[in-house]
């Protein structure tokens, strides 16, 4: 079902460019040049997405809040406004030129390397997301495990930032951020385990290949999100990735009205920009992982559209997920620390475990092919996950009724 002819060449375009560039060098250096080129390309692509994302987020939030958003900065040194889409350039110049203040009693080395470790860990985790049919930067057998190992390093960076600032509030903010990241790492991993269980592999390219078929005459893709367990797992994954990326409604660690700015209090200038960039890279990495594991990776939604380049579909789905992140940020209010941890441990972890049972049931009932059997399979599968969800959520949030207002007499 892969594209042929001219469409195949467009699909392979980055590879063709890479081959041309690498062929200029002698044979012994070609492997190293290949690796450097791949790393540089991933960095540049995601840095561009980061720049685009900042302006999209500001405009998107602004429209949700019924205001125009940045609309002055266009092409520099001209009067063309471009609707404000030159804002990333202005932001970059501002961040680079801002003074880099380090507190005198701070631990200089720790204060310096914290944003570096954070950026390195998020860039490393981006290496196993397949960006297209032939565009997987790093082919690993245990790719999903590698993704989580790279994400685990970022917790160390948050602690180092909080400790290295030599500031009580930074430390408390770092502890809160760590508690949040650790609490939500568990539902994140538990939500992914059904996918690994049912595809039998940890390799991202194999998982994308397993979602590459269509049923119902080429109109229903075999993506994991279109199964009951996959939908529940995707929902848990999306909520947990909001928390892992410190995005609203879980952005307590970096909210402006909380503990100044948490672990980012003593950072300014380019180091702050690096933290910001690392947060957005983490968001892209988690969104990319969600697209890979649940939304079919680089496959087209309809088999007739498979001729379009695979990287186009991947980035389209990625931007849809990022749009979801921005939309939720603009819509939902922030959770308090205790509400947050209660939500993770009491609601999401049991639901993720029930979903595991659900996925096992789905796999074991794979032979129920008749229409009646299929309907029964779907009903039972939905019941296995919906019943605990309804019961748990009712019992956990009982007593927190609708808000009643008392006005002064």
């Amino acid at each position, binding site marked *: 079902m892969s594209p042929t002819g001219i469409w195949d060449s467009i699909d392979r375009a980055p590879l063709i460019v890479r081959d041309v560039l690498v062929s200029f060098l002698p044979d012994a250096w070609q492997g190293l040049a290949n690796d450097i080129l791949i790393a540089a390309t991933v960095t540049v692509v995601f840095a561009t997405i980061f720049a685009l994302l900042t302006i999209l987020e500001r405009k998107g939030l602004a429209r949700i809040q019924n205001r125009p958003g940045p609309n002055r900065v266009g092409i520099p040194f001209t009067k063309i406004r471009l609707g404000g889409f030159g804002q990333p350039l202005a932001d970059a110049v501002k961040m680079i030129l801002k003074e880099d203040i380090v507190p005198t009693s701070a631990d200089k080395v720790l204060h310096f390397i914290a944003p570096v470790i954070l950026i390195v860990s998020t860039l490393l985790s981006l290496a196993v997301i397949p960006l297209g049919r032939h565009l997987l930067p790093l082919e690993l057998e245990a790719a999903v*495990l590698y993704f*989580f*190992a790279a994400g685990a390093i970022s917790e160390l960076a948050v602690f180092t930032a909080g400790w290295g600032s030599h500031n009580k509030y930074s430390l408390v903010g770092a502890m809160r951020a760590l508690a949040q990241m650790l609490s939500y790492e568990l539902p994140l991993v538990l939500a992914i385990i059904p996918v690994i269980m049912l595809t039998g592999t940890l390799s991202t390219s194999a998982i994308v290949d397993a979602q590459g078929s269509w049923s119902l005459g080429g109109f229903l893709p075999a993506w994991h999100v279109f199964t009951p367990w996959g939908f529940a797992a995707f929902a848990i994954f999306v909520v947990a990735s909001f928390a892992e990326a410190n995005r609203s409604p879980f952005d307590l660690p970096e909210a402006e009205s909380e503990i100044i700015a948490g672990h980012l209090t003593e950072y300014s200038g380019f180091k702050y920009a690096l933290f910001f960039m690392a947060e957005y890279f983490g968001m892209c990495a988690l969104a990319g992982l969600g697209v890979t594991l649940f939304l079919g990776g680089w496959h087209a939604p309809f088999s007739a559209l498979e001729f379009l380049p695979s990287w186009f579909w991947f980035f389209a789905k990625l931007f849809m997920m990022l749009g979801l992140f921005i939309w939720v940020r603009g819509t939902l209010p922030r959770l308090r620390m205790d509400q947050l941890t209660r939500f993770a441990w009491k609601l999401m972890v049991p639901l993720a475990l029930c979903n595991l049972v659900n996925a096992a049931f789905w796999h074991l009932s794979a032979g129920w092919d008749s229409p009646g059997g299929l309907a029964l399979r779907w009903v039972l599968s939905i019941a296995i996950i919906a019943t605990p969800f309804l019961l748990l959520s009712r019992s956990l949030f009982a007593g927190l009724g609708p808000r009643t207002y008392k006005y002064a007499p």
Partner: protein
Amino acid sequence: MILLAAISFLILASAAVAITRRNLIHAALWLVVSWFGVALFFLWAGAQFIGFVQVLVYVGAVSMIMLFAMLLTRQGRVPVEMLTLKAEKRIASGVLLVSAVFGVIAGCILGTDFPVTEASAASSVTLVRIGESLMNDHAVALLAMGALLTVALIGAVYIASSGEEDAS
């Protein structure tokens, strides 16, 4: 061989620096560098799965436990105590004893001729085989490990928090 020597130097040097630091947080962070070196060693040897698990568990979790414990026991400040005579004697005797141990073991290692087979085990072990072996042959051990981790963590939480009633 050169790569192995470089990885060994990284592991041993960062571990040696870690145990001589007076600031405990710095010691823990140098230890994290050493754990990264061990993960690189596992990757060099072809045990990808174990290398990633090493990073995930040690760097991601055990380092957090150690740093939290250091903060909860107020070890963040560099201690101002001088090196007493008892401490010096303890350090000297420790280093002497350990050098003797190292000498004995290293002598035994260098004197043994290990039969190194050409076909290394690394190439034939895939992740699927490890998973199947884990779930079929070692299922009891896996379940026991799960029970042990649960009990250990419940116990750790209880021990660490039981002081709130009897604040002396």
